[in-house]
């Protein structure tokens, strides 16, 4: 007891151990974050020394920017579309691979492989599928005598294709987390249910799903954040085009800053995006945590 008290009372000196980390956060996150708020109230172009404060002008500009509506809808599709797809497919794969099967480890390894590869490279690989001239998908259409389609030229179609690619790349994460969740469910629950004559569906609904809630929470939150900030795949496949038709908030910000040289606007958009992602991810975390049951 004495030892314990002695440790806590004079342990304040150990707090110097987190100072290096705090310095990193202060310099590369907190300071830029505050700077970003300041820049969003200016008309700075990103290069010149001169700029003036314009108040909320850049935020008002967002309301009348006709590209911003599309971009926000796209970002929501990237976020929620990939989340739904990854969870359904990941869970289906995990349930299937939870059985006694030889070579299931090999399939898991294959499904997980894209996770470790750069999203940019994954985007290029799928670009080879959907490109107009000599794309792998159009080659199949040609076999059936159909006309080739310019898959990535239409915004809405491109958005769903990119969502699919993001799902393909990261469904291995969802699968792995679900497999870990399934393995943590005690087998006797199922045995007891079988004795009571429960069928597959009622076992799934009453045992598997409730006890998987922690895994579902992790997956949903991870996937929403990942989808909402999607950048690399979009750059590789369409670069946000045509126009802004398939852009996300991230690629739009990049364009505003480097191509349109409107740093003030880009910073304002960054702040809105931060707020949006923070609110969505914290809300979903709280809502989902409430649904979790303890073993």
């Amino acid at each position, binding site marked *: 007891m004495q*030892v*314990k008290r*002695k440790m806590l009372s*004079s342990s304040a000196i*150990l*707090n110097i*151990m*987190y100072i*290096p*980390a705090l310095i*990193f*956060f202060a310099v*590369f*996150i907190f*300071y*830029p*974050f505050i*700077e970003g708020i300041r820049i969003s109230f200016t008309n700075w172009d*990103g290069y010149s020394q001169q700029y003036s404060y314009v108040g909320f002008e850049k935020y008002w500009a967002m309301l009348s920017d006709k590209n911003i509506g599309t971009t926000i809808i796209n970002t929501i599709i990237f976020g929620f579309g990939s989340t739904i797809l990854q969870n359904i497919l990941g869970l289906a794969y995990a349930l*299937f691979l939870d*059985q006694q*099967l030889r070579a*299931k480890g090999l*399939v898991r*390894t294959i499904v*997980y*492989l894209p996770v*470790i*590869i*750069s*999203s*940019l*490279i994954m985007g*290029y*690989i*799928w670009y*080879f*599928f959907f490109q107009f001239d*000599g794309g*792998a998908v159009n*080659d199949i259409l040609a076999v059936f005598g159909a006309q080739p389609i310019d898959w990535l030229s239409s915004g809405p179609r491109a958005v769903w294709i990119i969502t699919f690619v993001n799902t*393909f790349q990261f469904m291995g*994460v969802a699968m*792995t*987390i679900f497999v*870990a969740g399934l393995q943590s469910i005690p087998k006797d629950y199922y045995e007891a249910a079988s004795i009571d004559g429960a069928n597959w569906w009622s076992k799934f609904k009453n045992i598997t799903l409730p006890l998987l809630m922690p*895994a579902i929470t992790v997956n949903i939150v*991870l996937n929403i954040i990942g989808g909402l*900030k999607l*950048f*690399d795949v979009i*750059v590789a496949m369409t670069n946000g085009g045509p126009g802004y038709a398939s852009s996300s908030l991230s690629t739009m*910000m*990049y364009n505003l800053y480097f191509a349109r040289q409107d*740093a003030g606007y*880009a910073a304002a958009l*960054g*702040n809105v995006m*931060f707020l949006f*992602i923070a609110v969505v991810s914290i809300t979903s975390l709280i809502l989902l945590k409430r649904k979790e049951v303890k073993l």
Partner: protein
Amino acid sequence: MKTLKYSVLTLMGSLHLIPFYILLSMALKPSDDTSSKWIFPIDMTMDNFSNAWNQAHLSQALMNNFIITVCSVVLIVFIGALASYPLSRFPTKWNQFIYLLCISCLIVPALTILVPLYSMIVDLGGINTYWAAILTQVTFQLPLTIFLFTGFISSVPRELDEAGLIDGCNKFAIFFRIILPLLKPITATVIILTGLNVWNDYQFSIFFLQRVSVQTIPVALSQFISQFQNQISWVAAGCVIGMLPVTVLYLFLQKYFIRGLADGAVKG
């Protein structure tokens, strides 16, 4: 029933391999072979690889990737482990606030502060330097690292610390002599997760590392494709080279990769 299950299993495996098959078939096809990407080349050629290697400056890019990843991971592990010890062992109100502050950085998408971050790095003269890239990578990987380390340290029995104290270790010696050696398994997880993130990073690298002498593989490939858009099989070969190092590592150490992810996620 059994046959059906194994057919489904085979189908799943092969469906997920198709993208890699297409990529490899493109990369091995001679430039005068205009057959479909689905048809694997009979006269395979290595020309695309040597062209991609030279034109995209991939040897330099691999070297840069290696330097940046190794330096970042060393700093991440050291600074992260150091910070996690007081945060998990001495949860005073103040330290809980600091912990929350660190973890909340997990939610901040790095891109949202791109404008001020970029202009700050410009002012510091950090564009096209290793240090700017390394320091930003370290910063954005630290929240995850601190999260994993603090979770792990709180599962280490406190009795060990007390025993050390009785044996005459001072407080810092307890960390370096007793706690640090016990962190090996979670350190492996941290190295894999953060190492992959840094190795594959595109969003920072494209801003901070544009000159050929410092650019990383994703940047080299993205500039390569905009330059040689009509030489698509070169790009395919470049992609194969770019993904080879991690893929080989993954195939040898896949157990650790997958466990690393499960460790990282389940504790969330």
